[in-house]
């Protein structure tokens, strides 16, 4: 057999062996151990309310009012005042299209979006536009960010309390309860998990 062919046959056999070990056996092993040792995490940290699955504690979701006309793609969804609102999302919190806006730091489109969000959020929450925190004005990287800043959560307490007719102090307690600190005390940034917070809010009454 010519050397040229022999080298390629060796390469092919090596690739197939590696595929079996690294591409089949290894992921099966990790899946097996993960499913036995920490199945809830390995299956997406799914959370339930009243026994029904309502999402994942790691994936944000939108809390909008139903559309007037569900078939109209041009109709902008309006935020529902009864819920704590998440950050803006480039993909509308659809896990089938995760991702960011990719708009540049000097983009006119991004500048316009930030200004519009500032005005809309300030009016919606009844606060001074200058006090709206940056995370309420910017889309996340994943489009699925489950968290908002503590400042943004606190800003929304009054509005949610009025819309639901529940005492603001009770909501403030819940915000504190669903605030995740930094991992190990120093890694990352504190935030409030909107999905878990809203689930607890829905249980009030």
């Amino acid at each position, binding site marked *: 057999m010519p050397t040229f062919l022999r080298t390629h046959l060796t390469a092919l056999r090596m690739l197939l062996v590696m595929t079996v070990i690294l591409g089949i056996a290894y992921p099966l092993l990790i899946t097996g151990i993960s499913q036995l040792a920490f199945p809830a*995490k390995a299956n*997406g940290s799914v959370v339930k309310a009243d026994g029904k699955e309502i999402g994942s504690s790691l994936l944000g979701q939108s*809390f909008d009012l139903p559309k007037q006309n569900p078939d109209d793609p041009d109709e902008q969804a309006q935020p529902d005042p009864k819920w704590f609102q998440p950050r803006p999302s480039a993909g509308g919190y659809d896990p089938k299209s*995760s991702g960011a806006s990719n708009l540049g730091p*000097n983009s006119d489109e991004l500048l316009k979006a930030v200004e519009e969000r500032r005005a809309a959020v300030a009016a919606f929450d009844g606060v001074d536009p200058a006090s709206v925190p940056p995370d309420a004005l910017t*889309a996340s*990287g994943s489009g699925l960010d489950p968290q908002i800043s503590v400042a943004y959560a606190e800003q929304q307490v009054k509005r949610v309390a009025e819309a639901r007719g529940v005492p603001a102090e009770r909501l403030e307690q819940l915000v504190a309860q669903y605030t995740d600190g930094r991992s190990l005390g120093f890694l990352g*940034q504190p935030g409030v998990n909107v999905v878990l917070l809203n689930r607890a809010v829905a249980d009030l009454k």
Partner: protein
Amino acid sequence: MSATLAGWLQAVALVGALALCYRPLGDYIARLLTTAKHLRAEKALYRLVGVDGDADQRWPVYLRSVLAFSALSVLFLYGLIRLQTHLLLSLGVPEMEAHQAWNTAISFTANTNWQSYSGESAMGHLVQMAGLAVQNFVSAAVGIAVVAALIRGFTRNRTDRVGNFWVDLTRISLRLLLPIAIVFALVLAANGVVQNFHGFHEVTTLTGGQQAVPGGPVASQEVIKLLGTNGGGFYNANSAHPFENPTGFTNLVEIFLILVIAFSLPRTFGRMVGDHRQGYAIVAVMGLFWVASAVLITFFEHQHGGTALQAAGAAMEGKEQRLGIAGSSLFAASTTLTSTGAVNSFHDSYTPFGGGLTIFNMMLGEIAPGGTGSGLYGMLILAIVAVFVAGLMVGRTPEYLGKKLGGREMKFASLYILTTPTIVLIGAGTAIALPGERAGMLNSGAHGFSEVLYAFTSAANNNGSAFGGITVNTAWYDTALGLAMVFGRFLPMVFVLALAGSLARQQPVPASAGTLPTHKPLFVGLLSGVVLIVVGLTYFPALALGPIAEGLH
């Protein structure tokens, strides 16, 4: 705790963890690359594959083995992607077009992981694990194998043998990458990274809407995507996706995985050449650039320059709340200074200078600390150039580690250095000259130019990250960037292996009073200067048109 203090503590913890691994991991890799003993399982594997594990190869044979293995990997992956709709666990994804499948197959084989597709809608689980993740392992191993051959060029004398590629590949994949991957895949899965074979799982949200919770064998792929400095996300949002990177803790683990092998390889180098100080000098230069870049990017992101970011009050566009500015900037510096290209925040929305630095990091040739193996061979080539420059100053034939650097050696080093800039500048220039390709930019003006420049810099340096606004899923971009990845990966390997062969053949020259010591601070300074000057002069005009113009505007 203040955000600033937390940011510094995070960096200190990371540097501490890397420093702890430097000796044991570097020594372990050196043993793997030098021992004559084979494990029993490896002997069986060599018999199955048809390899004589005890026979070393001449450099052209070593190179042919690298190229044959990579060519078959491209074909195999291409076939797997094109046929995936007929395979198990394809989750009903549509058939991928030929140009995109070709681009993807090259991308993963070349350790680039440039993605013109979006993971959750284009790839089934089987292709992800048996196709893409396998290349994440073996393409990383190929990089380390090539640098092993180069180091043997320094350590061996009067021989034409530089090692056995099949043995190097097997040992690195199964005895280095796999054990680390198993441990850290479980660490990630225990912290919320998913690991299952489900497709999308529909749930009814709190407001009564529908949401599809994704699944997949993510943890097992996530860990090797970082450890092997590959970077291809299971999902489109890559390491920004909460299922790939759920907490501040997993974020630090992921940055650690990106850096740990590349920062330990100088120890391997020092040990193999029999002088640990040589390794310390190389790692010092790598560390210098990495620290400077991480500090600068973090600084610029905190400043949040740019009209839109100023209006928002912080550079949080494209960044995750749980990771914050410091966790995102450290990741961005590490992923672009290695050949990783995974992202936990989107560089297109970074500040002009912060984003510009991510481009500059790649332009440095990804040597601080660089991709697995490729970072060290890139840095050693620059060390050779530095020694040569010093030799010119005093008018002596330069030598490095006892090997003379004559015309032949310098030709290979020069060709290595010229390859990537040529690809980047011709590619970006051509794309900008074509109206249809120019239209692929999302942003306008200088930032739009940066998107194109970033794409070719990323492809030619085998990074894989992007200023993601640019539309690259077109036949032209898939083809052009595919070519940039092939030539950017394999041409430099040709020159490195030729250099290895040429060094191994030499008789060593004893050090004399005129020999430049290559383990002292003077050499660290000289090498750092060469890195900056070689890169700065090559790319300065292009950088001036893009990020610098935008930042100074």
